[in-house]
């Protein structure tokens, strides 16, 4: 028998050794069914409480999102889009947070050994002690998720409640969700469940309903059921075809050479600047498309 709660490590950032892997593990997944989400933010509240995160009380800027973006203390955030679908309004509410990619861009970009790990069950976890706060994970992430804390200069994001999973409990957000818009189990079971949901949505007239499990990052351990899977950008800019930035791929590929032969600092500086400040074309394009499609001003 295989297990899903084991935290055996499959991959580790900036490390070449192969972790032990004789024990077998089942991949887990969190399925977020946007068509059942009422945007109540129970997941957000449960996340704060479980993870002992004390976010600042902000202000209202004319939107339902609060806080206004993910932060080092807000690891999941409800994002709201008002979409005028040919005269029929749709309020598309997406729980944003780490997607736990099978091929994690953050992990690949991370230069700090063991600061980012991937467990056999698919969870991508940040090991704060090892984090150097460089922010590469932010740029390496095709979904723009990790945030660097100003207080301790370390990167933070959703852990998929690895501490809960390890004792056989579902993530705090999934447990709290009042409408089962968040469902947790093995990735296989979640896919089967999604099929049923998609069939139901098609019956209700959503011809393009589908499962968001993007192959560009090897699939994800957080998947969405979308009514409009042909236009994921509608959902507050969920990227249509997320991929790890080619720069990260380069950095990853050239990593050993850089480290062992000691490139000049000037060259490195230029490279870092590009990685950290350079445009992320995929994202910007997606965001614009989303704004256009939803008719937002």
């Amino acid at each position: 028998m295989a297990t899903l709660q084991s935290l055996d490590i499959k991959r580790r950032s900036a490390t070449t050794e192969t972790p032990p892997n004789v024990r077998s593990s089942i991949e887990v997944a969190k399925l977020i069914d946007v068509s059942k989400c009422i945007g109540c933010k129970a997941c957000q509240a449960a996340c704060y409480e479980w993870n002992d995160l004390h976010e600042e009380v902000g202000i209202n800027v004319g939107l339902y999102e609060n806080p206004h973006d993910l932060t080092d203390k807000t690891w999941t955030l409800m994002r709201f889009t008002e979409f005028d679908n040919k005269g029929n309004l749709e309020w598309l509410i997406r729980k944003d947070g780490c997607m736990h990619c099978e091929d994690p861009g953050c992990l690949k970009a991370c230069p700090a050994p063991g600061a980012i790990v991937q467990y056999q069950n698919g969870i991508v976890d940040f090991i704060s002690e090892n984090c150097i706060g460089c922010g590469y994970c932010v740029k390496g992430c095709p979904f723009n998720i990790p945030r660097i804390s100003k207080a301790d200069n370390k990167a933070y994001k959703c852990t998929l409640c690895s501490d809960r999973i390890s004792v056989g409990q579902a993530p705090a957000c999934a447990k709290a969700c009042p409408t089962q818009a968040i469902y947790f189990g093995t990735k296989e079971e979640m896919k089967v469940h999604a099929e049923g949901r998609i069939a139901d949505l098609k019956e209700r007239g959503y011809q393009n309903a589908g499962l968001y499990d993007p192959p560009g990052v090897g699939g994800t351990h957080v998947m969405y059921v979308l009514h409009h899977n042909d236009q994921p950008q509608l959902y507050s800019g969920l990227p249509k075809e997320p991929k790890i930035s080619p720069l990260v791929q380069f950095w990853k590929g050239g990593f050993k050479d850089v480290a062992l032969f000691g490139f000049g600092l000037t060259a490195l500086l230029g490279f870092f600047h590009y990685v950290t400040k350079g445009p992320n074309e995929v994202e910007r394009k997606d965001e614009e498309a989303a704004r256009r499609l939803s008719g937002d001003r």
Partner: protein
Amino acid sequence: MTNGWNDIKNADVITIMGGNAAEAHPCGFKWVTEAKAHNKAKLIVVDPRFTRSAAVSDLYCPIRQGSDIAWLGGLINYILEKDKTQKEYVALYTNAAFIVKAGYSFKDGLFTGYDEQRRDYNRAEWDYVLDEQGMAKVDPTLTDPRCVYQLMKQHYARYTVDMVSRITGSPKDKMVQAWEMIASTGTPDRSHTSMYALGWTQHAKGSQNIRAMAMVQLLLGNIGIPGGGMNALRGHSNIQGLTDLGLMSNLIPGYLTLANDREPDYATYMRTRQFKPIRPNQTSFWQNYSKFFVSFQKSMFGAAATKYNDWAYDYLPKLDVTYDVLRAFELMHQGKINGYFCQGFNPLLSFPNKKKLTEALTKLKWLVVMDPLKTETAAFWENHGEHNDVDPTKIQTEVFMLPTSCFAEEDGSLTNSSRWIQWHWKAAEPPGEAKTDIDIMASLYRRMKAMYAKDGGAFPNPILSLTWPYIDPEKPLAEELAKEINGKVLEDVPDAADPTRIVLRAGQQMPAFALLRDDGKTAAGCWIYTGVFTDAGNMMARRDTTDPANRGVFPNWAFSWPANRRVLYNRASADKDGKPWSHRKRLVEWNGRSWGGFDVPDFGVAVNPTAGTMPFIMNPEGVARLFTRGMMRDGPFPEHYEPFESPVVNPLAPKIVGNPVARVFKGDMEVFGKASDFPLAATTYRLVEHFHFWSKHVPVNAVLQPELFVEISEELAKEKNISRGDWVRVRSNRGAIKAKAVVTKRIKPLMCDGKPVHIVGIPLHWGFTGATKKGFGANTLTPYVGDANIETPEYKAFLVDIERISPPVA
């Protein structure tokens, strides 16, 4: 709720109108999503705003706030015109066939008997024709022009699609589509549930909003069956319990009523509470009234209540008028109330017209606030700048703020809207010196009693003889009180047939309310709760999750009043012969010898269907009322009236302003605003991130929704030059608030009577204490008028204007 939260999963069509369950009751709303996912149910949401409930609906139909009766009247007309009723159910289980007195009529928006001076009706003619035996006359063919069915048909014929759309602003196509979906459940194998809350009650005709949908449900045969019912979602965790236990101006526990000045003695009091059946072989369960009343008096006053003093009839106060909260604050405003207690209640933000409330509280000599949190009411005398602009030195009220425990720090039971009475256990001590409310009330009582025993004073008898059977008189236990509510046997009761056999033994906990007596041998604090704590133990603490046939009944989880019954009127789930209307909707049935099934039958267990006893056992006619006789102050059929502050004139009766019998105090009528000055239709509501004025004290909830905002359409924003996130001022004729603007596609102007009506949405959660940004109470704006029958304030429909302002100086 007639049904319950879990039962919603059995519905085929669900209408959320007059509520927003996804927002206000998310974990109950789960059962809507379950019905959709597993029962292929369709969800209809009718609301002025595209709400969180609407976000997951199959059909959203916008409606102007305050026009629900027009919409539902149109639906009744649609059902009758298209002949969509469940015919056998309507003919047998409702009063459709009953003949109404010749004097009853309806003309120009008014029913027979209106007296403009008194703003009231003489309701004598709103009744059935009775024969010589006192039995109501009926026409089973429903063709008599004076039968309820025909009068109803005539009444609602005016509510055509065109007329309804003109009043409500609902687009005709969406409206008719919704009506068609709802009417599709008029078959025996389908059910429709109505989920509503304060969106219906908080109107000057709130009770009639609910009545209108109840009529729809009866016409479609949806009462008493799985997945059906009229489901009041209710607001607070134990508001059901507090009401069940009679903590309302006119009540005695278990929906008995206090006597009034015209009932000087017990015999007179009982004369109007005989409830003799008015159709042959009907149950008319309220015939047992005296048993419940006497048992209550024995519970209160013990040995001091005897048959020689009419069971201490004079120990309870009599009412000259009803002292509802609007009257209470009106009297306070007039300086006629000297002292006031607020137990876990924050009236300064809860009642309408904050300015008037502050003035009223200022006139008190003393105020006692018992609460776990620092409420605005306790701090009404503190200056908080523009959010509470008062001068403390000018306020002479003495104020006490007494810290109480919260739910986590005490044992006890709460009754949810499914009528489940559930026990909970204490997990920790309260902070600091906080005490439980029970201890505080006990301490106050003990001090009063000691003073009256020592010094005497005004009528000390009820205080001195109040039962106090607690081991520690200063600290009664929750279990002790629960047992008292349940009731016990005071003297042995022998079997009527065999006096040597004792049926009830003195000292025993009462096993069921059916055994309560009016001879003083039994006591029960609240008869409908009898069964909660029997000799078998604390039934409220039961945690058995068994649910036979997955019906959502959970018969052994906690205790559901009455008699552990989960679906009220469930006898109506079977036809006249006692067979279920359909296999899909089976609940209880007659097996040839007795009634039984998944639920406790709401019916005499041994009453053979051949007796013709009808399912609505609480009514003397045995059937449900489409026509309510004189029970409602504002009409036997619901009729559309505009809110007191409305942007349009009622096309059905242009001369009538507001509900013609709603009570309006002097001074309040004068501050109603006019559409010419305040052209926008405003409404107030809750947000999912907050609960009234409590959760703003909770840091996490303050993060999720930190600051007061109002919601307006893109069209109105453009007209008023307001952008997303701007500061705006919203004014009514009673005050003004400042807020951030949320500009949204979820609110659209509605075309009513040929002109666009703009809507302003105002959430109600902010104040000047707690963890959120300080904000204005929405009640700064709202009008001081209530429902004609039960005085629920009209928070959901009033008039305002809005303008962009520069940001306040920080």
